[in-house]
């Protein structure tokens, strides 16, 4: 999260002539040019880029990689998960088939076929096999074990806000300069043990890599990507105001540029009505009667599955600046807070005959795993639905932000009534630690902001 002390706006994107009326494409290009200049020629060893959801972070990484290689540099790229690495390799090789890309992987994590289908991509478990490649990509976890190699001059660290400070401590010896790219609004890294002992230290090993980097290199001023190409005009203002109040962004498309139409009319059921509202306005809230439930609330799970089933049955078409495409199962995702909830939704979808997890299937996953992914329509089981209490886990700003910012067209939230009252009964009570940047907005504020907006698109279930 951006610290309170950071001035509104970053080093780029707030210059003259970049008001809301300016061409978003030109605005984004100016920001990218400034970032690439800083990464290649800047006086600081680190360059930080804050990117809101869908602002072209991956495109920036690919472009920066190509420019660095074009300038004669060897490059290493650090991502956080194997699927992120495979995705990056695929993107790099697709964008520049002539680029030699090395995919460094662990012995128990074979790379995905999409990454290996390109002739210029080679994969190995040993870094020595890949030293000839212009770009070597791997996870932070794998890079930590790499030894006996000459340091790279340049590194790109992707999803840097999800990387822990201790992982950066272990890999920083491998490069001289680095470009850190990430979304400060997503989920913070976590630890399975208590870390209060180090709270407030600039190098708290459980904090994010970017927080440590900025604390020790105060002259680095984060850059910022100003335009979200993913979020529609109906979502960008809400997500920007609720989660990025000090680094506002806009949508790359205007109010009329995106549309979701359904061939079959609704049957009047709650699921169909919330689909209609979401298709029209970009948001929908299917509100079930208030009740305290177990985590895998069977009624809410069934409602989520029914909405997905009806979305597919009614043959939707998504119209956007990329053209018109049918709303198929692989363009829909279901997001939950917990893994057992995801499992329950999967089972309910299978029971309704909906294909789940795989090619041409609906994605069902937790917020942690949906980070960085993009769909046309998302159906979200609200993290606070049916809960008797609001814990720090369920209130975490990043969790809601991830769930509310994966969609290009519409987001439908399924929740038990009474979340606003639940929030009011559980004000944030986390202890204040000296030296720790106060998070703003906190999950409580962000939840209220999103809920207030959703209540205008409510259908009782």
């Amino acid at each position: 999260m951006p610290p309170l002390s950071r001035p509104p706006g970053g080093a780029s994107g707030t210059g003259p002539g970049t008001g809301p009326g300016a061409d978003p494409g030109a605005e984004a290009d100016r920001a990218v040019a400034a970032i690439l200049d800083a990464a290649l020629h800047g006086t600081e060893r680190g360059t930080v880029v804050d990117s809101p959801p869908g602002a072209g972070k991956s495109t920036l990484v690919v472009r920066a990689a190509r420019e660095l290689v074009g300038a004669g540099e060897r490059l290493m790229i650090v991502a956080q998960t194997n699927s992120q690495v495979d995705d990056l390799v695929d993107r790099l090789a697709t964008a520049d088939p002539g680029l030699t890309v090395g995919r460094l992987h662990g012995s128990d994590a074979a790379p995905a076929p999409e990454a290996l289908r390109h002739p210029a991509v080679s994969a190995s478990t040993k870094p020595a096999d890949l030293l000839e490649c212009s770009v070597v990509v791997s996870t932070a976890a794998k890079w930590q074990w790499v030894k006996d190699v000459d340091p790279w001059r340049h590194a790109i660290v992707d999803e840097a806000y999800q990387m822990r400070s201790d992982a950066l401590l272990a890999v920083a010896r491998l490069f001289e300069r680095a470009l850190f790219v990430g979304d400060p609004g997503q989920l913070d890294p976590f630890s399975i043990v208590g870390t209060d002992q180090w709270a407030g230290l600039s190098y708290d090993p459980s904090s994010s890599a970017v927080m440590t980097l900025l604390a020790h290199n105060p002259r680095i001023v984060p850059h910022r990507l100003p335009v979200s190409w993913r979020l529609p005009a109906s979502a960008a203002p809400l997500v920007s105001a609720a989660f990025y109040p000090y680094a506002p962004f806009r949508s790359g498309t205007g109010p009329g540029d995106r549309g979701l139409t359904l061939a079959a009319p609704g049957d009047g059921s709650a699921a169909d009505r919330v689909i209609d509202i979401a298709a029209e306005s970009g948001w929908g809230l299917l509100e079930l009667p208030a009740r305290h439930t177990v985590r895998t609330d069977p009624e809410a799970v069934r409602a989520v599955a029914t909405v997905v089933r009806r979305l597919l049955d009614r043959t939707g078409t998504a119209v956007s600046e990329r053209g018109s495409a049918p709303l198929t199962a692989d363009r829909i995702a279901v997001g939950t807070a917990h893994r057992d909830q995801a499992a329950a939704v999967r089972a309910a979808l299978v029971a309704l005959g909906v294909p789940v997890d795989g090619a041409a299937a609906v994605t069902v996953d937790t917020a942690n795993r949906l980070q960085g992914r993009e769909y046309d329509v998302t159906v979200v089981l609200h993290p606070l639905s049916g809960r008797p209490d609001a814990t720090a886990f369920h209130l975490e700003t990043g969790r809601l932000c991830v769930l509310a910012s994966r969609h290009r067209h519409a987001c439908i939230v399924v929740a038990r009534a009474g979340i606003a009252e639940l929030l009011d009964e559980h004000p944030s009570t986390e202890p204040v630690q000296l030296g720790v940047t106060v998070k703003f907005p906190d999950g409580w504020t962000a939840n209220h902001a999103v809920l207030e907006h959703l209540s205008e698109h409510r259908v009782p279930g």
Partner: protein
Amino acid sequence: MSLLSTLARMEAVRDGRAVPLATVRHRHLADRPMVLVPLAAAGEAGAPLAVMLGQDRESPVLLTVPQPLDRDRRFALLADLAAELLPWLEGFGTEVDLLTREVKDPATGEKTEQVRELCTNAPQLLVPGPAAVEFLGLLGRSTRFRRSAETALDEGVDPGPYPVPARVPLLGRWLTHLRDRAQVPGSSLLLAMTDLLGRHWATGQSRLEDQHLGALLAWIDPPAGRTGAEAALLAETARDGHGQLLCPPAGPTTDPRFDSGLLAPAITRYDAARKLDDAVAAQAREAEIAALLEAVLRPTWDRLWQGLDLLRALPAAAHLPERWEGDRWSYTSHRDRIAAGEPPQPVRDDAVTAARKLAQREREQTRLDIQEALDDPLAMAEHRLAGEALAGRVVAVEAAYDETGRSPKPRPLVTVRTSDRPHGDPGRELYRAGGPTAQKAELVSADPAAGLVTVRLLNGMGRRKEPEPGSVPEPGEQVCFTLFELTARQSAPLPEPEDTPWTHGGPPVTRTATAQPDLPTAPADEEGA
């Protein structure tokens, strides 16, 4: 809180007494632990008021301070505590096992044999609750940097205004080490009784309320004729005719009504006697204060031993010796650091040390979760309920082979009848728990309606075409497979502190013990105090 422990708490409410959360004891208990109950003075951070300690439940040692604001008396108490604890702590350092291992010289690649000492046993300290653990850490912080007149003389420096008795700084280093080790999941050098009991029983009250040792024991072992809830309420609120709690807080904080009604007037009388230079009266007043403190310490002391009895009734878990060995290594290495004359532990960890500690604790937490699940069906049940494991009886075994290699390898299909619903797709890797060897399998199919799960065993069956006898479960046999690995992964290497990279501020500036500010008590912002 898991669904299973929530259910256990609801059952405890229904039954009126605590419900077991474990079938075995998951922490090592020494034959003769040192039991210690510290009390702190109200309103003065890190000022000890009294300590009751010992290894014999019938004859505890009582140490008290008649005036906690008197620094000389405060450090006199700590000197007494050092005299009680240090011989015991250091005593474990003399008997050692000699372990040999081969080490490779990084430069030449030559292998040499290295002999290391591992202390045969290690000390175990038992306190009432986590607050007492933190208080011992605070005492360690406030004493380990102090200078005694003797060491000042040795170093040829001015001892400063408050030199402490000789062994107090050493006690501070031991207390710091014990408290630091207590942060490692599954460690047993310094244990809190409420944590121990809370791990093994679920009460019908919240976890916060479980911090009250008296109320917690009331749920686990209610007196005849009372429910746990009634007994817990009595433990929390019942007072005698003078308004004093029948079950005083287990410390380090004291009951404010004890402080204002009994302790403060007694201290005032002691101060008055001192002012008049009346040594006899002062001594009498001091004895009064000691008696008051003994009266509020003794109930907690007895409850600690009651808790020990309850825990000792549980059979020890199978992995306890393995984890206790980690504690022995921890003890041994601290013994070696002191013997080598190293300076006291710094106030704050540097970046590398903090990352190393975090990595160790995460690794130990993972190991603890795995070992508890393997040792205890109730712990494994939590994983089964969460879809992370499956257990049941084998109903069919079908021989099958991997024919892709030069010779066929056994890959038998095992079908298990179970109501568990593992959260995994076909092809998901599984690990066999409780098998003859570490064995991997993969999920082939799951049919929740029929209550059947089929898995394919992948290894651990020998090199021949037919599996080694006993390596494949037989029909009718009870088996368990987990979706999580059954060994904790090694942590990735970290740089040496002097190689701390630019992203983390570069190598730390060395701070010596003498450069430490000579604070009598710890500021609030350090060590997570």
